[in-house]
């Protein structure tokens, strides 16, 4: 028996196919991952992502400390704003990617992956010791993500007047706390939506209310096809401690301005100087099978093989898509070794669908 979120019973009652996910019993799907995926793109769906790690960082030196630990610069944030970022090691490799929310001038909330929990908590404790701040892992909170074009109005119909008003004005990457709930206009699907962080004891009730106003539950299988269509990285696939953000389509999160010293800065600078070794590209296979992690990719103009970092079938597009590591000058045509056969594929930017629209090119 793995760890269970506050919504475990709900998932069982809904007939979810439960699986082990990094030590957690999580819902893979509730009947059809393809249907759940399409529902999010066309209407909205809700995800239990309470298995992720929430760490609050509060104190006079919280800002200074996070400016040292994170690749992006939290000084750019006002309370009520969030940014995508990463914890880097001294070699410039990614320890985890995360979203950091600015709660107030001396308080931040980090949401990191469930699979990296121990490593991240250990790393944070080790590197925040010399700063005047408090780290609190919030295992008392659950997270329900509601995503899709109709997500925000769906969530509003399950809230009271004051909460409705509070989220009505939220810009993308905006966040606010009201009563004991926290709302953020962030997500992992490429659609509009909210992530609601609330006490475990309230999670079941909100989940049920959302179900009553027509929001369908969506499992981890669809979560993966949605994020891959949106060109969003998955830690452990597109990057890990041996991969720099420059190689993982994450160069844009590195805030270089000023003389801000942050862990990994020197290594990244050196990497830029000597030349970044590879980049991430999008790959499409129109027929003949499904692209999968680990498959070799041979580009028409290079003798160096790349490899698929994440692959799947795209329900929105109706064919197989993938992200792959490629040489910087990779051609638009390539072959991928699928079950012993080399199949012809198209190579393009590492993003396929945004806000329901096909953008792959």
């Amino acid at each position, binding site marked *: 028996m793995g760890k269970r979120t506050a919504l475990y019973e709900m998932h069982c009652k809904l007939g979810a196919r439960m699986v082990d996910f990094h030590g957690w019993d999580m819902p893979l*799907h509730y009947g*059809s*991952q*393809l249907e759940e995926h399409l529902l999010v793109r066309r209407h909205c769906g809700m995800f239990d992502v309470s298995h992720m790690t929430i760490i609050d960082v509060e104190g006079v030196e919280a800002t200074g400390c996070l400016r040292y630990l994170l690749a992006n610069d939290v000084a750019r944030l006002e309370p009520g704003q969030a940014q995508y970022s990463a914890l880097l090691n001294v070699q410039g490799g990614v320890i985890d990617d995360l979203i950091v929310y600015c709660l107030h001038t001396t308080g931040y909330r980090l949401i990191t992956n469930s699979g990296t929990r121990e490593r991240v908590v250990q790393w944070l404790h080790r590197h925040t010791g010399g700063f005047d701040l408090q780290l609190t892992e919030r295992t008392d909170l659950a997270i329900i993500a509601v995503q899709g074009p109709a997500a925000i109005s769906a969530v509003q119909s399950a809230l009271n007047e004051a909460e409705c008003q509070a989220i009505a004005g939220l810009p993308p990457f905006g966040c606010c706390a009201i009563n004991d709930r926290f709302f953020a206009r962030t997500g992992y699907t490429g659609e509009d939506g909210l992530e609601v962080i609330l006490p475990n004891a309230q999670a079941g009730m909100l989940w049920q209310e959302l179900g009553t106003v027509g929001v369908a539950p969506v499992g981890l*299988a669809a979560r993966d*096809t949605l994020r891959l269509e949106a060109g969003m990285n998955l830690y452990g696939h597109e990057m890990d401690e041996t991969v720099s953000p420059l190689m993982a389509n994450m160069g844009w999160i590195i805030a270089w301005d000023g003389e801000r010293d942050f862990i990994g800065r020197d290594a990244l600078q050196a990497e830029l100087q000597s030349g970044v070794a590879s980049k991430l590209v999008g790959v499409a296979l129109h*027929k*003949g*099978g*499904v692209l999968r992690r680990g498959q070799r990719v041979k580009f028409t103009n290079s003798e160096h093989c790349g490899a698929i970092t994440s692959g*799947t*079938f795209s329900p929105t597009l109706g064919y*197989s898509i993938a992200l792959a590591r490629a040489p910087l000058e990779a051609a638009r045509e390539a072959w991928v070794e699928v*079950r012993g056969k080399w199949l012809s594929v198209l190579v393009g930017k590492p993003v396929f669908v945004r806000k329901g629209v096909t953008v792959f090119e």
Partner: protein
Amino acid sequence: MSEIPNELRYNESHEWVLHEGNGIVAIGITDYAQDSLGDVVYVELPAVGAVLSAGDEAGVVESVKAASDIYAPVSGEVVEINEELEDAPETINDSPYGDGWFFKMKLSDPSELEDLLDAAGYAEVVEKE
């Protein structure tokens, strides 16, 4: 609980065989197999005319999460394939024993049918998984 029709025969790789008479059998994958695979998105079927021995690789069924080989459960010649599956692979999930049939063979050795499992025998295979 997966469905296991009594009138069919089965093998341990989760395929079913229906003897239609005149030495022709229809072949597909079981309810347990389609459920384990999840949403099917692609099927590779053998060529009509292909001569296969029992146990030979006959094709592939691929879902979002995994690819699974299909084997010939008996020996013979492929006489018909279900072309509908190319555009509608999800039929395999919706109707594994009906419209989701994969291909038909003309038996070269009808006695091989006796080596297959009956519904009770297959139920035991599923339980052990």
